[in-house]
C-alpha cells in the first residue's frame, strides 16, 4: 500500500505527514510514502522530516506546477499565501517560484520588449529571474501593492460574483438561491461562457439591462423596475425566467440572472448603497466625518468583522491613520482581533494618527513626509514602524479621481474609473497606463517616491531592441505579486482595448478585500 501526498511545502503539512508515518511505524505497518511538493520543495520541509525521524521513510519529488491558466488572459500561480508570507512576515520564500514562473513564460513565448517594475518584491523577483536566466531584461510590470484598490467593494460583474460567491480557480459554486432549484451547481467562469464573457467586465448596472434584453430576445417576460439608487435595476418578484421546460430557456442566462438577483438581495440587506457612498467619500476625500461615523456604526452593529476591518483599513490608508485606538473594535469582535490589529499595523494597513493631528493637518504632514522620504533611503518595509500612506498626494498627482462633469456613463465608459462607478481609477492600473505611455518612468519620479517604491527601470543603455513587429500587436504581461482583483483585470482589459494592446495577467493569486483581510486574521495556530 502506497501513500502519496501532493502538497504545498508547509511545515505544518510535514508534521501531519510525519504523524501518519510514525503512527504506522508504531503499529508495525509497513508502507511506502511519497511526497510530491508543488511547486517546489523547501529546505525547511526536509528539516522537519528529518527531525521527525521519517526522512528515510519517504521519497520526495517535485512537481513544478507554476502556472494555472484561469482564462485566455489570466494566469494564476495559485499562491495566495504570497500575500501574508511576504507582506506580513517579510519572508521571501515565494520569490523563487515567481522568478521560475517568469522564466517559464519567457521560454514559452520568447523574448518581450521592456521590463518595468515597482516595489521591492518586483525588483527581487526580476533580479532573481535574471540570475537564473543569466540574461537581461524582459517585459513585465511589477507589484506595488495597491492596498486601496483591493480594499474597495467591487462593482463590475465578475468582481461582484467573486465578492459574493467566491470564485475559486476560475469556477464558482452557485447555490439553490441562484439556481432556483434545490440543487447547487458548480460553474466554470471564463471566456468560454458566452454570456459571461459579455458581462464580466461590465459595471453591474449595465449587466441587468443587458441580460434582460437578451432574455427579452428569447421571448421572456419581465417586469423591470428601477428601484435601487446604485444603478442596478430590480426584478419584481412576480417575473421569472422561463423554466427549463418552457421555450426560451437558456441555462447560462438563467444562471447569471439568478446570480444577479442573489447579489442584489444580499447587497441590499448589507446597505451596499451606503457602503459604496462611504468608500467613494474616503477615496475622494470629502465628507470624511460622515464616512467615519458610518464605519463606526458598522462596527457597533457587529455586521461582519471582515467588512469592518476592511473599511477601517480603507479609512486609515486614505486618511493617513485612524483617530481612535484601532483596537477598540475588538470589543465587538473578540479579543483575538487584538493580534489581527497588530498584524495590520505591521503591514501599514492600519495606522494611528498621533495625538493632536486634525484632518486639515494631514495634508501638511503628508507633504512633509514626502520631503523626508525623498531624502532618506528606502527603509525596510517590515520594521515594526507603520508606514505613512501618501494616498491623497498620489491620487492628486495621478488624477485617480476623475472630474465629474455631468453624469458618468457607465454603459459607455470613457476611462478605467468605471470599474468603481466612475469614482476612482485603480492606482495599479493607472501606473501601468502611465508607464506604458511614457515608456518609462520619466515624469513619474515624484509618484514613485510617494509610493515608497524603487523602480526597476531598464538601464539607460538598453540592450532592448525596439522590435516594430512587437509593437504592432503589443502584448503586455502584467504581473501582480500578492494578488490581483477582478476589478483591476476589468480595468486593464478596458485599457487594452483603448490602446490597442492585449494584456495578459500573471498573478500569484486572484484576490479581493475579504481574502486580504482573512490573510491577516490571527486564528488558531
Amino acid at each position, binding site marked *: 500500500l502506497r501513500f502519496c501526498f501532493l502538497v504545498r511545502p*508547509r*511545515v*505544518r503539512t510535514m508534521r501531519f505527514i510525519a504523524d501518519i508515518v510514525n503512527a504506522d511505524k508504531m503499529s508495525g505497518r509497513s508502507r*511506502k510514502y*511519497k511526497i510530491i511538493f508543488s511547486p*517546489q*520543495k*523547501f*529546505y*525547511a520541509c*526536509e*528539516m*522537519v522530516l*528529518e527531525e521527525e525521524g521519517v*526522512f*528515510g521513510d519517504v*521519497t*520526495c*519529488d*517535485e512537481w513544478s506546477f507554476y502556472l494555472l491558466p484561469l482564462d485566455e488572459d489570466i494566469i494564476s500561480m495559485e499562491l495566495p499565501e504570497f500575500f501574508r*508570507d511576504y507582506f506580513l*512576515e*517579510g*519572508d*521571501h*520564500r*515565494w*520569490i*523563487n517560484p515567481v522568478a521560475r514562473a517568469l522564466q517559464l513564460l519567457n521560454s514559452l513565448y520568447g523574448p518581450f520588449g521592456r521590463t518595468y517594475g515597482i516595489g521591492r518584491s518586483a525588483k*527581487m*523577483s526580476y*533580479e*532573481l529571474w535574471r*540570475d*537564473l536566466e543569466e540574461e537581461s531584461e524582459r517585459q513585465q510590470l511589477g507589484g506595488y501593492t495597491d492596498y486601496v484598490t483591493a480594499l474597495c467593494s467591487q462593482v463590475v460583474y465578475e468582481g461582484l460574483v467573486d465578492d459574493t460567491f467566491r470564485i475559486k480557480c476560475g469556477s464558482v459554486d452557485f447555490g439553490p438561491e441562484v439556481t432556483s432549484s434545490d440543487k447547487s451547481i458548480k460553474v466554470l467562469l471564463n471566456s468560454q461562457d458566452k454570456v459571461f464573457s459579455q458581462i464580466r467586465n461590465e459595471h453591474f448596472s449595465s449587466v441587468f439591462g443587458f441580460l434582460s434584453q437578451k432574455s427579452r430576445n428569447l421571448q421572456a417576460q419581465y417586469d423591470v423596475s428601477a428601484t435601487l439608487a446604485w444603478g442596478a435595476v430590480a426584478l419584481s418578484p412576480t417575473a421569472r425566467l422561463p423554466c427549463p421546460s418552457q421555450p426560451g430557456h437558456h441555462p447560462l442566462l438563467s444562471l447569471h440572472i439568478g446570480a444577479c438577483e442573489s447579489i442584489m438581495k444580499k447587497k441590499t440587506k448589507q446597505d451596499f448603497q451606503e457602503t459604496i457612498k462611504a468608500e467613494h467619500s474616503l477615496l475622494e476625500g470629502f465628507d470624511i466625518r460622515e464616512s467615519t461615523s458610518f464605519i463606526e*456604526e458598522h462596527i*457597533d*452593529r*457587529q455586521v461582519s468583522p471582515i467588512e469592518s476591518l476592511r473599511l477601517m483599513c480603507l479609512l486609515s490608508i486614505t486618511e493617513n491613520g485612524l483617530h481612535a*485606538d484601532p*483596537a477598540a473594535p*475588538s*470589543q*465587538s*469582535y*473578540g*479579543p*483575538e482581533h*487584538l*493580534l489581527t490589529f*497588530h498584524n495590520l499595523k505591521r503591514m501599514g494597513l492600519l495606522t494611528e494618527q498621533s495625538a493632536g493631528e486634525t484632518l486639515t493637518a494631514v495634508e501638511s504632514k503628508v507633504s512633509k513626509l514626502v520631503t523626508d522620504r525623498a531624502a532618506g533611503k528606502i527603509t*525596510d518595509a*517590515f*520594521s*515594526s514602524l507603520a508606514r505613512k500612506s501618501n494616498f491623497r498626494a498620489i491620487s492628486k498627482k495621478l488624477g485617480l479621481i476623475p472630474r465629474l462633469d455631468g453624469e458618468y456613463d457607465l454603459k459607455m465608459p470613457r476611462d478605467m474609473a468605471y470599474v468603481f462607478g466612475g469614482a476612482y481609477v485603480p492606482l495599479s492600473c493607472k501606473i501601468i497606463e502611465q508607464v506604458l505611455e511614457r515608456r518609462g518612468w520619466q515624469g513619474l519620479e515624484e509618484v514613485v517616491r510617494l509610493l515608497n517604491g524603487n523602480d526597476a527601470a531598464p538601464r539607460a543603455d538598453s540592450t532592448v531592441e525596439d522590435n516594430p513587429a512587437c509593437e504592432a500587436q503589443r502584448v503586455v504581461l502584467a504581473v501582480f505579486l500578492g494578488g490581483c482583483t477582478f476589478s483591476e483585470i476589468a480595468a486593464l482589459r478596458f485599457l487594452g482595448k483603448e490602446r490597442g494592446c492585449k494584456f495578459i495577467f500573471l498573478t500569484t493569486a486572484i484576490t479581493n478585500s475579504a481574502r486580504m483581510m482573512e490573510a491577516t486574521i*490571527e*486564528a*488558531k*495556530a
Partner: protein
Amino acid sequence: MSRVRADEEEYWHSSKFRAFTFDDEDDELSQLKESKRAVNSLRDIVDDDDDDLERVSWSGEPVGSISWSIKETASGSTSSLDGRDSSLQKGSSSYAALPKQASSYSLSSLFKGRNKLSSFQSLSDALTDTGVKNYAPELRRPKAEYKDYSSDWSPKDTVRRMQRGKVCSLERFRSLQDKLVLLDEAVAGHDGNVITAVLIFLKRTLRREILFRELEVRQVALCHLIHFLRETGEQKFLLDLLRFLDRTEEVALSQYREHLNIQDVEKRREFLKGCIGLPFSAEDTSHIQDHYTLLERQIIIEANDRHLEMAGQSELFRKYPRKASILNMPLVTTLFYSCFYHYTEAEGMFSSPTNLKKTFKIPDKQYVLTALAARAKLRAWGDVDALLTTKNWLGYTKKKAPIGFHRVVEILQRNNAPVQVLQEYVRLVEDVETRLNLATKYKCHDVVIETYRDLKDRVQLTAYKSKVERGSAEEEKIQNILSNMQIRWKN
C-alpha cells in the same frame, strides 16, 4: 568501526596468506616477494567486496557522502541531507575512518598488509627494518579539508546552486566569517527558501547569542528566522530572540498568541491571568485585562445558566433555548446575551447588563444598540421604549437615541415589530426624506400624512390617499387635512 574489525578477524582467519607480523624471522626477500604477490592479488579480491574502499557514483561524487543525495524517486532512499554531520553517517559505510588518499605510511595499511596505490615503499621499508619498530603517527590534514571537486563552491556559488534546487553541503562553512558571508549572499539572492536553509544551518551551529547578535543588523534574515520559528512552533527560542532584540511588546504578543491553542476554558483563563503582567503597551494591557475578566465572568455565567436551563424552571430559557455557550464570545455578544436572558437583574450580579456596561466601560451608543436588538428580539416593546426615553431635570420625558432613529426602526422592523410600534419611532427620524421613505416602506400612514401636512405638500398628500385603504381612519384623516382651509399649501 566494529565492522572493520570484524572484517579483519575474518580476513586473518580465512586468508591463505600468511599474516605479516613484526616478529617474523623468515627470509625477508622471499617474504617480500610473497607479500608483493599477496598484495597484488589481494587488491582484486578486496576491490570486489570491500566497502571500506571509496565508491564513486556516475556523477563522480562519492557514494554515501554528504554531497550525494537522492533527489528523484528511489526506493527506500537513505539519502543524506545537507547539513547533516559529516563525521557520522548512519547506515552508510564508515569510509570516513579511512583516508581517501593513502599517504605513504598509513597505519591501517600497515596492519592490514595491503596497500592502495603505489605504496610498496612502506612494505619494503617495513620489511627492511629490523628489530624495533618506530611508529610515528602521521600528521596529515583532516579528510574534510581535502579538495573535493564536488564541494568546493564559494558562498556565492553555493547560494546559486541552492537557488536552482541543487543540494549543497553547508558543513564546510565553519568559520563565523564564512557563515556570515554565506548568509549575506543568500539574502542578496532574494530566495527565501535558501535564506531559511542557511538560517537552519546557522541555528544549529552557532550559539544563540552570537546568532542573535548578527541577525540584529540583518533585518531580512531576521524576518525569515522569526517566521521560521513561528512556523515550527519553537516558542522558547523565538521569545529569547525577541527579548534579545528588546522587542518587549512582541514578546508579550507572541506569548499571548498561545492562548489560541488552549481549548480548556479554565486553563485558558489561568493562562490569560498570567498574561496580564506581560510587557504590553498600555492600551493592549487593558485589552488583555478585559479579555481575562470577560472570560472569568463568562465561566460563571455559563455555569449558572447551564444549571438554570437544566432545572427547567425558567420560562425564558425554555422558550428561547440557548443555541451556544457564551464562553469565548466577544464582549458585545456577551452583552446581547445578558440583555436577552438577564435584563432585569441588579447591577451586583455578574450576569446583568449594567454590570457588564460598568465593568467594561461600554459606551452608551454600543449599549443602547445592543440592548435594543435584544429586547426587540423578545418583542419587549416596553423595554425598547424605556431605553429610548430619558428624563430631563424637570421630569419631562423625551425620546432620544444615540444611534439615529432610522437605525432603531431598522432593528425593530427586522424583528417584525407591529406598525404602531414602528410608527412611533419613524416619526422621530430627523431627516425628512428618510422619514418619508421609511414610513412609506413600512406603511406607517399616520407619519406619512403628518409629514406631508408639515411640508404643506398637497400634491403628495392627495396622491397618498390612493395608497390607504378605502374608508379607513387614515383616509378620513387625509380628507380632513385636505379640507383644512387654514393650511397654506405650497402646491
